[in-house]
């Protein structure tokens, strides 16, 4: 058929044919004609009717032509399906609700993943972008600026390239107009905006010209800052900002859509790299050993990522000073921007796992629906048999049954999209605190998401709709027409299909429960992790350092002078049992590593020794056990012999089990007798940065002997930690107004924060597991009820022949048991195959934790058996006479 005709007929769906009127006119004209020839009016009318032929037939032909026949029947089918669903509102709303929940959860999680992984940076030719990722012993890191310069200028596979590193802006103000908040600024090399192809929405971006030593200081603001701090005022260009007391002129504003090159970390301002020495106080740009920049670039035409890697990796290794074999360079696609490892592990991996879980929940929901539809189909056997007998085509009937499923999934999808909208907001709120990023992050419905929703709902419909529709119409007409469906022969295959669905449900449910159990166990492991110290009753006061001024000889003197009075003061606070200073508290932002050598044993590249500078009473305050020797004491002063305390792991690594007390070490690559430190004690290992880390080698040094700015105070108290925090803050302020005091928080609270992600994930997994359990139980209940109902007569006969109720229950329960066993076997196998999905999120799971999986399985068996027992009981309570009388 031609397109035009299609279009006309499509239009016909929405217009009404006016044939009746035309025919009426026709008949009246014809009758008038006959009258003119002398006929009686009544006779003329009759004659005219005859002449025009079968009006009904004509009207029908006309109507068929007026519309698309397919659509016409489709519309009919939907009207019919709608009536069917309206007749069973409980079934319909349950179906729509479960589908809506399933599709909504899938959509929400997909939107998160889509925003994080599938969206290209909003820049020109994002597919050409690559990220250069240096690996140190397979741990991703950053480049130093000189190394970046060398790579950028010495090859032709990835060019041009840019570097970007964090700028530490402590204070920002508008010249002549108050402070502004700049939390996160990026130092970028001059080519940044040109290479990405990002133009300013206001003013201009900067170029290589602005990025040379001595150039006047400039900055490009993010849209967010323009909005938040300047209210979108156009005169922001030309304003002078004072950043770390250096003047910088605003030259432009980046577009709203441009959120920087890193995922979920939108800079507030971009500043040319050449400003680093002025803003940072110390010049990092010439330091080959100071790694702080990420590097991205564009591939040259025709250069694959593999080829770029093959060229760049050996070159990078040659450029490094140390030739240790632990460094590698990886070239990865930069099309989606740089993903920080933290984001990968705290957001992307959990979302991936969540995607699998919600998909499983949706599959369970579909199985449930399929079973409900099967049962409905069974109840309609007679009706369908009649229609088949009257000559309806099977495909026509399948279409009609499917339209019911389509209607359900359509409604479910609408509900799902609405739920997803709400759930996405929650997810985004969890992912970022930043109001602006929230606004920009995956909160739009676009073709990505709509496509996904479409695919999911069609797949779901196929999953739950097709099999029951096919099964429902494969009938032996003669038997279907018998009035009693219980005696029909189609029951068996249909029940088989229903059982298959239950097995799938049980298997998926077991997988979800197993996942939840493992995640819960991981959380439990993390919460009970031996930190090496006691977090209860420990408060930590963070003293943030100012990078621009705290690293000079003068400031060192300031801290040295403050040390004794501070130590004395906090230890005198009532309620403080003990307090100490260190240069990096538990869960602090910084940690230092050091080389460590012994006579005859130089430092090795594989060593990784953490250096912690501590005041006296540190071990006592933290409650770190001393395993041998002594801790750092008041008597360890600047001029007394230099001493260290080793952690257990350090002692084992460097002394191979020999007693280290009294031996000497030095912090050089090879042992230097003139810079030797004596080991005076061995302390228990500690996990300083995160409860997830392994016990590692650490060396405790008296802060008096290795002077440095301290930036945390640890306080042990018996009193309410929150009230104590105020007292500590007051004491610190009283001591010196110039000392910046950051957060003062109980360590246990910081620990909870660190585990918030695990907590959420475990809770979500448990919630989904319970949902799955409920749905699978309902499914099992339905199938068993149906089976029992189908066997009423058989049960009656058995009862009449002397079987006891208990025996009948047993008969049904055997079926329940078989179904459960099959589901659990399948589920256990599939779980084993799928552990990869959650592996990165598990912590401290050992084969001994298999007990938890067994527990999950037992829970499933218990709940599901109960669901199966209810209908089985019914079989036992049958009245044999009643049962036999049923036809």
């Amino acid at each position, binding site marked *: 058929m*031609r397109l*035009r*005709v299609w279009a*006309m*007929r499509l239009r016909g769906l929405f217009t009404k044919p*006016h*044939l009746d*009127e*035309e*025919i*009426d*006119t*026709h008949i*009246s*004209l*014809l009758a*008038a*004609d006959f009258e003119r020839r002398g006929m009686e009016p009544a006779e003329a009318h009759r004659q005219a009717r005859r*002449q*025009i*032929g*079968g*009006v009904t*037939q*004509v009207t029908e*032909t*006309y109507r068929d*032509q*007026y519309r698309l026949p397919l659509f016409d029947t489709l519309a009919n089918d939907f009207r019919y399906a709608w009536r069917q669903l309206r007749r069973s509102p409980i079934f319909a709303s349950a179906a729509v609700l479960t589908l809506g929940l399933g599709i909504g959860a899938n959509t929400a999680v997909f939107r998160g993943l889509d925003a994080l992984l599938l969206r290209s940076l909003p820049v020109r030719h994002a597919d050409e972008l690559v990220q250069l990722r240096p690996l140190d012993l397979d741990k991703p890191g950053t480049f130093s600026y000189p190394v970046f310069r060398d790579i950028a200028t010495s090859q032709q596979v990835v060019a041009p390239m840019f570097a970007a590193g964090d700028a530490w802006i402590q204070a920002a103000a508008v010249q002549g107009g108050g402070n502004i908040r700049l939390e996160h600024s990026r130092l970028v090399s001059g080519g940044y905006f040109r290479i990405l192809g990002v133009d300013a929405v206001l003013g201009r971006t900067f170029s290589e010209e602005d990025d040379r030593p001595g150039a006047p200081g400039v900055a490009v603001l993010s849209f967010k800052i323009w909005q938040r701090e300047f209210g979108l005022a156009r005169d922001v260009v030309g304003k002078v900002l004072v950043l770390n007391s250096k003047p910088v002129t605003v030259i432009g504003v980046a577009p709203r859509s441009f959120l920087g090159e890193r995922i979920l970390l939108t800079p507030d301002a971009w500043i040319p790299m050449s400003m680093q020495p002025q803003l940072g106080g110390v010049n990092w740009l010439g330091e080959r050993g100071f790694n702080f920049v990420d590097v991205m670039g564009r591939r040259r035409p025709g250069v694959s990522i593999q080829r770029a890697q093959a060229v760049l990796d050996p070159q990078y290794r040659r450029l490094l000073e140390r030739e240790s074999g632990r460094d590698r360079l990886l070239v990865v696609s930069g099309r989606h921007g740089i993903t920080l490892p933290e984001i990968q592990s705290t957001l992307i991996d959990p979302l991936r796992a969540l995607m699998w879980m919600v998909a499983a929940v949706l599959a369970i929901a579909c199985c449930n629906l399929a079973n409900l539809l099967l049962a409905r189909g069974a109840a309609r056997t007679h009706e369908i048999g009649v229609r088949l007998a009257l000559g309806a085509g099977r495909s026509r009937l399948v279409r009609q049954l499917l339209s019911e499923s389509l209607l359900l999934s359509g409604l479910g999808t609408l509900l799902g999209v609405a739920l997803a909208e709400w759930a996405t907001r929650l997810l985004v709120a969890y992912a970022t605190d930043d109001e602006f990023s929230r606004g920009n992050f995956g909160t739009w419905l676009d073709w990505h998401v709509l496509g996904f929703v479409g695919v999911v709902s069609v797949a779901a419909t196929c999953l739950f709709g097709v099999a029951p529709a096919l099964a429902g119409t494969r009938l032996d007409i003669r038997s279907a027409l018998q009035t009693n469906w219980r005696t029909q022969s189609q029951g068996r295959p249909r029940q088989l299909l229903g059982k298959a669905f239950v097995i799938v449900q049980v298997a998926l449910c077991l997988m979800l429960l197993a996942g939840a159990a493992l995640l819960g166990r991981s959380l439990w492991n993390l919460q009970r992790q031996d930190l090496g110290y006691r977090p209860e009753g420990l408060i930590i006061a963070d003293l943030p350092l100012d990078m621009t001024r705290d690293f000079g000889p003068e400031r060192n003197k300031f801290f040295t002078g403050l040390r004794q009075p501070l130590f004395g003061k906090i230890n005198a606070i009532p309620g403080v049992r003990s307090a100490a200073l260190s240069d990096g508290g538990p869960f602090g932002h910084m940690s230092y590593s050091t080389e460590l050598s012994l006579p005859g044993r130089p430092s090795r590249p594989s060593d990784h020794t953490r250096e912690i500078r501590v005041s006296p009473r540190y071990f006592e305050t933290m409650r770190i056990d001393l395993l041998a020797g002594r801790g750092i004491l008041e008597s360890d002063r600047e001029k007394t012999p230099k001493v260290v305390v080793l952690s257990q792991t350090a002692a084992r690594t460097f002394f191979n089990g020999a007693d280290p007390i009294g031996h000497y070490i030095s912090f050089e690559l090879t042992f230097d007798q003139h810079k030797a430190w004596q080991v005076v004690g061995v302390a228990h290992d500690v996990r300083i940065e995160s409860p997830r880390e392994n016990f590692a080698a650490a060396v405790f040094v008296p802060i008096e002997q290795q002077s440095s700015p301290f930036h945390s105070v640890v306080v042990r108290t018996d009193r309410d930690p929150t009230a104590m925090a105020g007292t500590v803050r007051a004491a610190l302020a009283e001591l010196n107004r110039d000392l910046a005091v950051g957060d003062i928080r109980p360590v246990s609270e910081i620990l909870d924060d660190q585990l918030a992600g695990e907590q959420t994930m475990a809770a979500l997994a448990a919630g989904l597991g319970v949902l799955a359990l409920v749905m699978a139980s309902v499914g099992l209940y339905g199938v068993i009820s149906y089976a029992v109902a189908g066997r009423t007569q058989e049960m009656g006969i058995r009862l009449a022949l002397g079987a006891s109720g208990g025996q009948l229950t047993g008969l049904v329960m055997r079926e329940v048991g078989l179904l459960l066993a099959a589901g659990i076997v399948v589920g256990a196998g599939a779980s084993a195959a799928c552990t990869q999905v959650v592996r990165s999120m598990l912590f401290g799971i050992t084969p001994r934790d298999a007990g938890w999986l067994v527990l999950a399985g037992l829970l499933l068996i218990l709940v599901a058996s109960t669901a199966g027992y209810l209908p089985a009981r019914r079989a036992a309570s049958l009245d044999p006479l009643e049962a036999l009388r049923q036809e």
Partner: protein
Amino acid sequence: MDNRSEVPYGTLDLMVLKTLDALGTLHGYGIARRIEQVAEGSMELNQGTIYPALLRLEQRGWIASEWGISENNRRARFYSITRTGRKQLAAEAENWSRTVAMVNRLLEGES
């Protein structure tokens, strides 16, 4: 003896187009009557079948229609031929002549 024949299959469209081409705008009854007049009783037209034909032609864009008032003051749809309809008429008329000529030759050859 009734020697009236049925409308040959596929020719109704051609007849409708030709009628509208010759007489301009007409309603369904007018078209049917005109065809019967020309047939002079030699053909039995089931008048109702003209309406599906009109719909078909209109859907193809060969004729256009609008509502009007008939001579006995009732609402009726008036049809007229379009430009593409004229082209189609010319093509189908030629096609028809060729078919008729071919069938004639065949019949003459037989006898």
